[in-house]
């Protein structure tokens, strides 16, 4: 897509999924406006970056070094090769969730039981208190608002990675304004809305299992089943601040991909495992075990 820079008139080439660009000639930060479509509505909210780039570097390096025990030695020399602050689009979902549930509720009671045992060579009859559980069926309804569910709207950030960066502090939510993303990389939603809605509902259904487990009376429960209907759903786009880092530790290996929550500083990234280190550790454990076995068996023989 070709647009012209408002500042100097130069031609700007903007990728379809990007919302912002910087003019290569005059360095003016531009925000791209597009007619909205159902899959790509204008953002409603945004969270601003709080973590500075220096802090993001430090947090990622610190996190990597802390988890480097099983990693190759070269990790210790890892350096940040690239750092980008990206506003990632996510769908903010809320709804009224109405669930019908059925479960078997366990109510404990104590019973006195007689039993026979052998004491000093004689058979004696004794009594003892035992706790037993009576199971009663229960059906019911559970209704509540589910307020803050975030699912990714970007094909660049899988939902699983977003979950590792959560939670975001939604109290700092701002109404989206073009000025909030000016000068930064900002994406437009690239996943279809229907797919994200299904994902949000699935996330809520998973969340409700925990809520319903806590909602059950009795001393215990089993075979909890529920079906949920969603009413008055709302799905709006919220831009989330994410620092994306590439850490290079070995010139031959691909760089490590790290993410830092631009608001809270939570870090997510995979650290490679050094199979040499693991093999050595396994060998060491086997050697110690073998040594102990020999020592013990030697002692017995004597």
């Amino acid at each position, binding site marked *: 897509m070709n647009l012209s820079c408002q500042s100097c008139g130069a031609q700007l080439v903007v990728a379809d999924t990007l919302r912002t660009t910087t003019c290569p000639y005059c360095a003016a930060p531009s925000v791209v406006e597009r007619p909205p479509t159902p899959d790509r509505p204008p953002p409603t909210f945004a969270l601003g970056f709080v973590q500075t780039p220096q802090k993001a570097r430090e947090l990622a390096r610190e996190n990597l070094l802390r988890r480097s025990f099983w990693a190759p030695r070269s990790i210790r020399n890892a350096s940040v090769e690239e750092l980008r602050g990206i506003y990632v689009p996510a769908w903010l979902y809320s709804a009224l969730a109405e669930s019908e549930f059925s479960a078997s509720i366990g109510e404990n009671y104590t019973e006195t039981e007689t039993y026979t045992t052998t004491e000093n060579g004689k058979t004696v009859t004794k009594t003892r208190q035992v706790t037993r559980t009576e199971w009663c069926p229960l059906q019911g309804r559970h209704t509540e608002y589910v*307020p803050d569910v975030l699912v990714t709207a970007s094909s660049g950030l899988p939902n699983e990675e977003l979950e590792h960066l959560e939670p975001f502090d939604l109290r700092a939510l701002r109404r989206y304004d073009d000025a909030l993303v000016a*000068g930064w990389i900002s994406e437009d939603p690239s996943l279809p809305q229907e797919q994200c809605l299904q994902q949000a509902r699935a996330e809520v259904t998973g969340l409700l299992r925990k809520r319903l487990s806590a909602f059950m*009376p009795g001393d215990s429960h089993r075979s909890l089943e529920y079906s949920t209907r969603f009413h008055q759903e709302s799905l709006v786009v919220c831009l989330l601040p994410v620092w994306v880092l590439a850490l290079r530790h070995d010139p031959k290996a691909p760089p490590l991909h790290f993410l830092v929550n631009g608001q809270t500083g939570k870090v997510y990234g995979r650290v490679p495992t050094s199979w040499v280190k693991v093999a050595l550790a396994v060998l060491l454990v086997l050697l110690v075990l073998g040594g102990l076995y020999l020592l013990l068996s030697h002692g017995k023989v004597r």
Partner: protein
Amino acid sequence: MPSPEAQCQRCHSRLEAEDLRCPVCALPTPRPPRAVDRERARVIRCSNCGSAVAYSVEAQAPKCAFCASEMRTETQEDPIDQADRFVPFEVGTDQAHEALRIFLGKGGFFRPKDLASRAALDSLRPMWWPGWKFDAQVEATWTADTDAGSHRSDWAPHSGATHLVLNDILVSASRGLTQAETQKLSPSYNLAKAKPKPEGPPNAQVELFDVTRSGARRQILAAVELTARGHIARSELPGRRHRNLHAAVTLSGLETAHYALPAYVLAYRYGKKLYRVVVHGQDPSCVLGEKPLSWAKVAVTVLVALALLVIVFLVIQAS
């Protein structure tokens, strides 16, 4: 931005002008959409000097690199709310003093005989304490164990749903008065008499709402939940005893108002100690506070009771 009288489209709760989302059900508040008919690249300009603006992490706001002015963006405001309705004092300073005298005179067996005559008034402070009043409708679903329908175990599980209409529920925001005090004072206020300006003794102080709006909403939601649980425990559960009451509440039509409520805080001295008494600002018969105990009377009663027990024991032994 919603208008000051806006309502949430989902739960019909009242919204404040600065709300981005409904505080009860989290539905985003509507904003007039800006029409975009064709694709274009826009440079955001500084309103001060006209140069390009970019978001600055350090300032946590869009900031102009040349003149360093910051742009304001709409965010969730969290101001400290103030009382806008004052319930007038209907009890004068003299009446409050009289109420204290009657309160002390009503003694009770363990109180010192000379309490009313020897107690000396130390201070009498008229004040308005802050409180929220809310109206809401609650859909509550619940589960609990009760003794109804139980077999071998003492308990059987039950579940249910109920609809509640809560009107004129007062929640205290006061730090000067304790929760127990405000709970006893609350039922005797006539909120219909509230006025926009304070009316009462000239030296009356207004205790400020020392809570932000979000904190207030948390307290109000907690109060709604507590009220709903109380109602369920009293009138919904079968059987006589219960345990493990779980309630899930969904609110609708939540409306809150900020009130300043009149009361007198008195301190009197008896012997060397100070005691505190609170007199209702509208109803002089509503008085709560502390009274000293006569330890001599307590000791004599305990001794008499012990002596009686010993005699009874001896009589039983002898027979």
